[in-house]
């Protein structure tokens, strides 16, 4: 083994290192999302921090960062700051506070500390003081109040309307809050929960996340309307893009006359596939929203003008925009399928006297059906993950109405709607730095990632099964 060899082999290893590095970086980022996203519903234990100056803070640690300082004499020191989630928005803007670690004199985790999730106004951390019914205190102390609360808890929904019952909570420094039961989402004491109770709490939280509407400016609650809106928009889009995509692919591979013109069209489709999504959004705004929508308004809804009906962003325009965006995806997938159908099959059918259409319908389509399905799945995955064009064609951070509901005409194509991807942007990109909405953003990111990866994995699986079948047919 000469030295020449080993030097060259080391270079091979280095090139292999870049491959591994790329994978590791993506895997690392995904791991961060998974860890943060899954942690959202796990009940965090509450810690009581006693500071040297006598101040007391109740909350749970979310970060620990180092701070470097240099004194006047040039001596260097590193101190650490703890980021504490404290709840109670009135006192701590953003529900967070920083503590100098060096100034923490002691910490403990009091068993009776509770989290009160409120419908409005964010979470409160503290200790149960008393249970008040119409001005009279009916119970005092942790156990008694909790017993009363548990009695009422199953009927919380009904109590929403009746404001007489309330719970008094004292915070760590003795201040008292009175919370009307009508404003209570849930109360729990994380420090005394068993692991099993935590698991149940977790499951309940995850369930509520999927199936309930958001609260508190998307910081809390669920993403049901966003999931619903995404699904509705994607379905609408598929209804438009599939027929056109399949027909266009049939034209390119089966009916069009092969020649320079078809080649130009094919290259153009390919280039279209690489046009940035935001450009489609701009086109959608100019053409669908203002031109088509404006025309529709002046023809069908002149009574409502100048208030636009279709002449502003809405789910239909978003769906059409994304249909345009995913058209090349469908075409490419179906074309690949058509190219894979052995020409001898078509010839055999023609030789029996079948017309072009009969051959297409009875021989070709059954074979390319999985490719069409693959195209559908891939376009759905692409559409579910695309956000930028929607931001200018009709997606909103919060909407009280769903695009499909019980009111005539049931499907409201003109409505603005919520979208999971935009929900991530909204909760993860607050100009004021809003830390409070980040847990929600992580969870929604994880959900979106899971959906898109699952769809793509399905498409890949389908395609590889398809390829295996061809190889069998050829053998």
């Amino acid at each position, binding site marked *: 083994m000469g030295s020449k060899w080993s030097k060259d082999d080391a270079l091979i290893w280095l090139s292999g290192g870049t491959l591994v590095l790329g994978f590791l970086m993506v895997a690392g980022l995904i791991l961060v999302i998974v860890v943060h996203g899954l942690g959202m519903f796990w009940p965090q234990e509450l810690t009581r921090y006693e500071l040297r100056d006598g101040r007391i803070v109740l909350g749970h640690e979310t970060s620990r960062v180092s701070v470097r300082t240099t004194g006047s004499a040039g001596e260097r020191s590193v101190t650490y700051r703890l980021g504490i989630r404290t709840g109670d928005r009135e006192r701590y803007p953003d529900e967070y506070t920083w503590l100098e670690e060096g100034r923490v004199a002691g910490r403990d985790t009091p068993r009776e500390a509770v989290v009160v999730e409120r419908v409005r106004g964010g979470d409160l951390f503290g200790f149960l003081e008393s249970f008040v019914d119409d001005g009279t205190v009916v119970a005092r102390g942790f156990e008694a109040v909790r017993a009363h609360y548990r009695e009422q808890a199953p009927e919380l929904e009904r109590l929403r309307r009746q404001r007489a019952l309330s719970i008094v909570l004292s915070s760590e420094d003795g201040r008292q809050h009175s919370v009307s039961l009508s404003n209570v989402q849930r109360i729990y004491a994380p420090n005394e929960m068993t692991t099993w109770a935590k698991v149940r709490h977790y499951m309940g939280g995850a369930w509520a996340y999927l199936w309930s509407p958001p609260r508190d400016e998307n910081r809390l609650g669920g993403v049901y309307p966003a999931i619903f809106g995404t699904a509705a928009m994607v379905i609408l889009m598929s209804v438009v893009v599939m027929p056109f995509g399949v027909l266009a692919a049939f034209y390119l591979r089966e009916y069009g*006359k*092969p020649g320079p013109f078809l080649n130009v069209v094919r290259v153009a489709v390919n280039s279209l596939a690489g046009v940035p999504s935001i450009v489609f959004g701009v086109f959608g705004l100019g053409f669908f929203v203002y031109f088509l929508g404006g025309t529709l308004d002046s023809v069908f809804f002149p009574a409502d003008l100048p208030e636009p009906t279709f002449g502003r962003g809405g789910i239909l325009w978003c769906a059409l925009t994304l249909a345009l965006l995913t058209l090349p995806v469908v075409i490419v997938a179906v074309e690949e399928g058509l190219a894979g159908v052995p020409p001898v*099959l078509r*010839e055999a*059918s023609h*030789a029996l006297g079948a017309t072009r259409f009969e051959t297409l319908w*009875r021989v070709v389509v*059954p074979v390319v059906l999985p490719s069409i399905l693959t195209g559908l799945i891939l376009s759905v995955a692409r559409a579910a993950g695309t956000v930028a064009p929607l931001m200018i064609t009709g997606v909103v951070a919060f909407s009280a109405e769903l695009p499909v509901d019980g009111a005539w005409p049931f499907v409201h194509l003109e409505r603005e709607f919520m979208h999971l991807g935009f929900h991530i942007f909204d909760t993860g990109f607050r100009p004021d730095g809003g830390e409070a909405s980040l847990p929600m953003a992580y969870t929604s990111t994880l959900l979106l990632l899971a959906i898109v990866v699952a769809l793509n994995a399905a498409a890949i699986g389908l395609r590889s099964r398809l390829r295996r079948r061809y190889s069998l047919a050829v053998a």
Partner: protein
Amino acid sequence: MTTENAPVTPKILRDETIIDVEHVSFWYGDRPALKDVTMAIDRQVITAFIGPSGCGKTTLLRLINRMNDLVPQVRMTGRIRMNGVDIYGPDTDVTRLRRRVGMVFQQPNPFPKSIYENVAYGPRIHGVKSGGFLDEIVERCLRRAFLWEEVQAQLEESALGLSLGQQQRLCIARAIAVEPEVLLMDEPCSSLDPVATSRIEELMLDLKDDYTIVIVTHNMQQAARVSETTGFMLKGELVEMGVTDAMFTTPRDRRTEDYITGRAG
């Protein structure tokens, strides 16, 4: 187009021509594939075409059922008539023509469907709906192709599971299910082993009473075994055509002799 009454290569055996090819030339793009081919094919006779590969045998065959319509940028001159009617005439319905002129390909190419559906495909397209009648057709054709015994228990299974020889017989059954008059076979045995090949040859001899068979082969023994008339092609030209036995024993053209005796090719 060319002249009407061009001399036709000598007719052999029964004087009952079904297909007349007159001065046919053919180009793929600019490349000539056939040069002024003139010949006649007789009814209920097996006609074989031999010649080195690339000489235009497949092209000639595919002109007879107009399969070359599907190839872009081709050009043809001359005339091909079936039963006296120009098959490239403006009134010809291609699908009807192809129904009357069946084809079996070099590679067995069953559809990725069940055995039953493969045979039923043609009749269905041409309007046979009733299940009972269809069952009858399928059984009759499979029997005719010597395949029924082997597959009657697995009619609903995929045709792709059959052996290559069985697949080719299935393709023959599929072709005769639309009741063609002529059966074109393009090297039907070239991908088969000797046993499967002899079964196909047996089948051809059996079918010849009902169909006019045109077979392309580059296997001279096969041509000698099954055909009554043989044509020899070279570089797009039909060098000579005549009674098979005569051709193999006393070829008239020098080039034919060279090919048969293995001196060229």
